[in-house]
């Protein structure tokens, strides 16, 4: 009797398409590369992190040591700061000091001492002069000289403030100008 041939219709082996197989191989490669990269980057980043931690500790310790040294020298620091502040202050004061004796040199250039009655300087650097001249000719000479001084920028804004002619022919003259220091 001839044995009966049986046909098994259930698939014993799962068939994959070649494309699926390629995808799986690619994915496997990708996963291995990803694992490799993760490991390398992990080691690198962790190393850098720990290096930074150690560096921070070193820097903090150095900072503390230096701070202690500075804290032990408050007198020196105080002296230096005081000297520097006062130097800056005195430099400013030198800048606001006016060589006021120069006003006399300027006035001497056009008025003789015997003609002078009053010289005044105010805090806006305006010089006021009261002069007694013997004649109009002297007045003209004085004003001409003052104008010349102004032209040479020795003085600024010269002004004739008053002029009084006396019975004896003498002239009382009021002049002002801004001094240039």
């Amino acid at each position, binding site marked *: 009797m001839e044995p009966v041939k049986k046909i098994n219709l259930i698939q014993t082996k799962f068939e994959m398409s070649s494309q699926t197989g390629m995808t799986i191989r690619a994915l496997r490669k990708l996963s291995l590369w990803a694992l490799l990269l993760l490991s390398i980057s*992990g080691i690198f980043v962790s190393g850098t992190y720990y290096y930074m931690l150690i560096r921070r500790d070193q820097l903090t310790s150095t900072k503390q040591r230096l701070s202690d040294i500075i804290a032990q020298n408050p007198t*020196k620091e105080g002296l230096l700061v005081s000297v520097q502040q006062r130097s800056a202050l005195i430099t400013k004061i030198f800048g606001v000091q*006016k060589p006021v004796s120069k006003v006399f040199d300027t006035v001497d250039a056009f008025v003789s001492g015997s003609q002078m009655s009053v010289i005044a300087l105010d805090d806006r650097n305006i010089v006021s002069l009261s002069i007694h001249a013997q004649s109009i000719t002297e007045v003209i000479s004085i004003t001409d000289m003052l104008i010349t001084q102004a032209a040479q920028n020795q003085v600024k804004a010269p002004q004739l403030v008053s002029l009084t002619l006396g019975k004896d022919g003498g002239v009382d003259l009021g002049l002002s100008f801004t001094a240039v220091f």
Partner: protein
Amino acid sequence: MQQQKLFREYQGLIVSAGILVVCVLGVLLGVVPLVRKTSDLNKENRSISAEVELLKNKVSVLESLDENAMRSDLLILLSAVPSDKSLSTLLDTLDGLTAKTGVSSGDFSLSKLGSLATESAQRLSADEKGVGSNILPFTINLTGRVDQLRGFLAASVSVRRLFRVRTFQVQFAKTATGSSDMVSVVVGMDAFYSPIPSAIGPVSQPLTPLTSADSDLIAKLEGMQLLVAPSSSLPPPSAGAEKTDPFSL
């Protein structure tokens, strides 16, 4: 049965996918935060490093200082601009100036003498703010020859302590022939003073050494005539014992 077979067939795929997921999670949960922390740490280190450089510089400046020389420099500066009104040095200097130039002094008045407020509580005027110092205005009456007066005005801005001539009014004496050489004058002047700072800044505050301009200024002041006796001699340096006020002389 079927599922088991399917799993067996796709085992490689599942493992690969699992590894990929682990890698992605590892990057997201491990590497990225660590990179951020490292970056923050790097910033922090840079900041501390800058501070350390500053402190090193400060220590180097402090170590290069000669404390006695600094005290001497400060005394010179204080003789030019004292820390308080110091009326004694003001009057002594004026006396010295009049004696030096030959003028006679008359009335003397201070216009801003007494203040009940402490120096730090006083409001500075615009002029004082401009100069950066307290100003003590005063007027003095003088008599003498014109050349003596000129000498006084010239010398008053070239001595320690520092003065500024604000105003003056010169009255020439009259004679039969005109004005004489004798004059009387009212001079409006300013003296300067400024309190010494009572506290130093934080440790992290930068410190620069004295510049050549500072040294030149001190040398210039030292060369200016001091018409009063120095107020205090140099105290011995403090050895180790810390002072409560670092600015105290």
